[in-house]
């Protein structure tokens, strides 16, 4: 994916999201939900939100967990919209 960089060796991932599609408050809430899984850093740059993820859980695959994080975030965004 263009907006996702995964470093398997370092167990790190960088995700860049458009704040129009992913509201900040929901991103923050989802990061809180993954508190024990990732060590997270959030940066805002113009209309984008950059998330740096460092996997904390031992034995887990950084790629799998990051993609699950992405889908969980999208589901939360969709469910937050009342009229959808």
């Amino acid at each position, binding site marked *: 994916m263009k*907006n996702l960089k995964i470093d398997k060796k370092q167990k790190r991932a960088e995700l860049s999201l*458009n704040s129009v*599609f*992913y509201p900040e408050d929901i991103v923050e809430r989802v990061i809180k939900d993954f508190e024990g899984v990732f060590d997270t850093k959030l940066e805002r740059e113009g209309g984008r939100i950059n998330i740096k993820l460092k996997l904390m859980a031992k034995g887990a695959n950084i790629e799998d967990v990051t*993609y699950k994080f992405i889908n969980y975030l*999208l589901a939360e965004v969709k469910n937050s919209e009342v009229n*959808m």
Partner: protein
Amino acid sequence: MKKNVQSRGINNLEIDKKGGYLIVSINPKIYPLEVIYSAAYVFLDKAYLTIDGNPEEEISVQMKPKGKENLEKLGMEFNNELVNYAVYVVQATRNQPLRKAIIERTLLTNNPSEEEYCPECGAKLVIDPETGEKYCPVADEEAYAEEKTEEPAEEEKWEDVEEDLDFVEDPMGISKPWTPPKEEGEANEKSKNRQKTKKG
């Protein structure tokens, strides 16, 4: 160098075989954001998705299948889902006034504060489903009972019977009484016996 393959049949799909993902480009004027979110939500169990792009000009959905699914097929299925939700949104918008009216009517019907009572007998008024007007069911029942108890005049009764008889058709001759044909000898003996008993 990254090789991007554009799907031959459908020009809104950009497939990256090396990266194992595809990008679906969507015009937000045709498919609003709520439609895109809904379509993406359906694909959450099949693929990993992110939404990006310009919400005014072009929205792009990046999809990476969870299994070994064909990328082009996945993109085309996503396009179908977009159409599906777009139709749903259009229909929902069209039906909105009707749905509102039905809900309002339902809530008003069951609202106890809106109940009215007959000033004469105190019974709860009922709404006529055809006309929508309120009426007293007790008064209505009484009127019906009166109508029923009024006996028709003798002439009217006979007219009714005649009318009923007109409708009775008997092409098979069932209504006529039937007796088995008797033999001549038997019939004569019987008539003689009767005559004897009368005389005796």
